[in-house]
């Protein structure tokens, strides 16, 4: 922004007004000609643009209720304005730091434990030479993605319950102490990340597998000629080739920091593990939606959105700094 204004200032001082106007006119004519020439492309993109305006940008106007005491029967126009009241409430809530901590911790689990797994899995699948075996495995590991969290959490409940749960029965039969998998705070987090891995591991490999197939086979041949083993080939050829994809996925993932899946966590939270598992989404549901406090919920949602935006922009910048392509 600052650069461009500086540039404009420069031009202003160097070029006489007349010539500047002429340049502007020419530039405008060029743009117009460009539009006319590519008119079909523009027309084709119109539905997409309209979609974004109508379904993504216009509803954003609703954000203003975060600064009101919104009452449904009064509507946006008549609800009283309260400034930052709801944000003050959020930040002064005694549970705020607990929520932030839990959210960040679950996010860290997602980032450091879950994120590398699909990459490793894709690399492993890529090394499988038997086509049928490979596509068989792929189909099997995609299936959990299509199950809802309710089903997955219920299955886990059946396995992990203390009374009649298969896992605890096994532990007990070997003379061990029964483990409160579902209520203990730390165990709940472990169960959470295991469930995420089980459900999403296979599906997330798709994009990496696609990237891997785009690697030039000549590179492998050259590496082989130089005597590189399979592991060496993965390390020096495959991984660098899919690095841009990994970086893009990473940035996207970071953007969803505070979106850890309401449904999933809500199903796992209970009275005993709440201090470990309650995150912003679940908190908003009980504190905001259940009590009909739409403004407060919106304020928390806005806060989440802003944090996500900052993180995406930050990580994008960082990626560029390290010479990667980034998102934009």
């Amino acid at each position: 922004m600052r650069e461009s204004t500086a540039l404009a200032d420069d031009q202003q001082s160097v070029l006489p007004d007349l010539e500047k106007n002429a340049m502007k006119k020419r530039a405008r004519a060029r743009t117009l000609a460009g539009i006319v020439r590519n008119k079909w492309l523009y027309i084709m993109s119109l539905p997409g643009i309209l979609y974004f305006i109508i379904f993504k940008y216009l509803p954003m106007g609703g954000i203003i209720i975060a600064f009101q005491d919104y009452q449904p029967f009064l509507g946006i126009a008549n609800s009283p304005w309260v400034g930052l009241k709801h944000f003050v409430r959020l930040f002064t809530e005694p549970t705020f730091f607990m929520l932030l901590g839990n959210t960040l911790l679950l996010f860290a689990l997602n980032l450091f434990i879950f994120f590398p797994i699909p990459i490793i899995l894709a690399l492993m699948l890529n090394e499988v030479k038997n086509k049928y075996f490979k596509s068989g495995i792929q189909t099997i590991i995609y299936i959990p993605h299509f199950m809802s969290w309710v089903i997955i959490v219920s299955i886990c409940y059946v396995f992990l319950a203390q009374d009649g749960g298969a896992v605890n029965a096994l532990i007990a039969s070997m003379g061990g102490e029964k483990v409160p998998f579902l209520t203990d705070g730390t165990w709940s987090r472990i169960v959470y990340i295991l469930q995420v891995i089980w459900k999403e591991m296979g599906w997330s490999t798709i994009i990496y597998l696609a990237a891997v197939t785009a690697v030039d086979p000549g590179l492998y041949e050259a590496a082989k000629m130089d005597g590189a083993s399979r592991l060496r080939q993965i390390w020096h050829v495959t991984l660098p080739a899919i690095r841009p994809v990994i970086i893009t996925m990473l940035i996207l993932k970071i953007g969803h920091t505070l979106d850890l899946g309401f449904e999933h966590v809500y199903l796992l939270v209970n009275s005993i593990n709440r201090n470990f598992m309650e995150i912003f989404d679940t908190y908003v549901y009980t504190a905001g939606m259940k009590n009909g406090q739409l403004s407060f919920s919106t304020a928390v949602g806005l806060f989440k959105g802003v944090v996500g935006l900052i993180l995406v922009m930050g990580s994008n910048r960082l990626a560029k700094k390290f010479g990667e392509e980034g998102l934009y």
Partner: protein
Amino acid sequence: MANYKKYGKMLAAGTLLASSLVLGACGKEDKTATTSKKESSEKVDLHAKADISWSPILYVATAPTDVVEKKIEEATNTNLTFNWIPDATKDERMIASIASGELDDIISIPQTLMTNSSIRQALKSGVFWDVGKYLDDYPNLKKISQDRREASSIEGKLYGVPFQKDFARGGVLIRKDWLDNLGMKVPTNLDELYEVAKAFTEKDPDGNGKNDTFGWSDRNELRYGSFKTLASYFGVPNGWAVDKNGKFTPEFETKAYKETMEYSKKLYKNGYLDKDFAVTSKDDQLQKFAQGKAGIYAGLISITQLKNMAQGINNKIEIVPQNKIAGPDGEYRIWSEGNGVNGLLAFPKSAVKTEAELKRVLQFVNDLINEDVFMLMTGGIKETHYTIDENGAYKILDNPLWQKEVQGFSGSRPSEITYKLKDADPDKQLVNDMISENDKFSQMDPTVPLESQTRTERGTELDKIIIDATIKYIMGETDEKGFDAAVKTWKDSGGDQMKKEYEEAYKKANK
């Protein structure tokens, strides 16, 4: 920079325009739906044919067919439109319909939504008619007791006709066949109840030689799980205690509450209470009882459901209800849900425009309490859905058919207490009798009619602090010090404020 501002303004204006268009469109639709009624506004004929729309809550899976609806229309001389709201999504649906202004003539507001901040604000700011002064003009509505009117009013105003129900449905259901196997009798006090739970866990009540049973079934909440019922037996006040000077004490600051926690903790530690109760849903809890894992269940009304669930997996099941468990002082007590009120039938001014229209709609609600309509909504059509046998007992003929065509209406009866049916199933009849008997010793919640801003704004969160701490205590995850610390958090996060607001409201109401 100036450009950015302009775009911002345009964006905001565009949004407002778009949203007002959407709202406007909804409003229009609503008008066309109600114009037909406007014509009758000059002279009030309370029994003239009327078009009435109603948003009742659907407590079962599917909406009833129109077989019974037609009969109700005949009996009340109306054309009815039912827009069922599924129980699971009622919060969002209700708020959305208030926001859009698209409201039916009659809105069912369940008790659980009466403390919802948006709904309460809407009630208080006059979106609905204040019907207090009209009730006495109608024979059935006149009979609504003063207690119930008070319990359902907000700051002295009654914004709808209260749904009347029994004061308390609390009690315990116990496996009768297990008691018989062990040679035990139905418990009558807390110690005996404890012994039953113990024997059900340790003495192999089902006689299969395996250690696979336990006493109490329970679930992840205090209110509808076992805890609140046990607390009543111990003499814990229902929510709040209020003394002669108008001083309020929350239930968990009483000695009896701690005694209940101690009792439950002992049950849990010894395995007499479901080890997984903190993560057990209502459905799982019912299943565990029906499958013969657990032998005690809190809540009388579930007897039919439990028997139905046990069909085919546990046919031998015999259940005995018990509502009289004496406390340490020998007294009977049971907590009352909503003080005998289950929400309101409210009439939005945007749909019911004139007083004349209101009077006609009230007449309709009054007619719903007439015996013939009550029977239609309870049992359906005589000899099709139900019958009255030679002993005068009520019996459903075809359960699936009744579920399909009638059951949905039964949750929307404005009064469940005006007529008492004799049930052909002796167990069910026993439960009915016990529920009536509960009236004598039911404990009211003094805060039901009182207004507290804090309660509406953050009640759910505050409750959560105490619920979590109590469950942790029972499971041995925290001790008395930890529990007291949670109580302090509760006070600091708004509990003290809530108490003050209740005391003030109480003073104002009892002047």
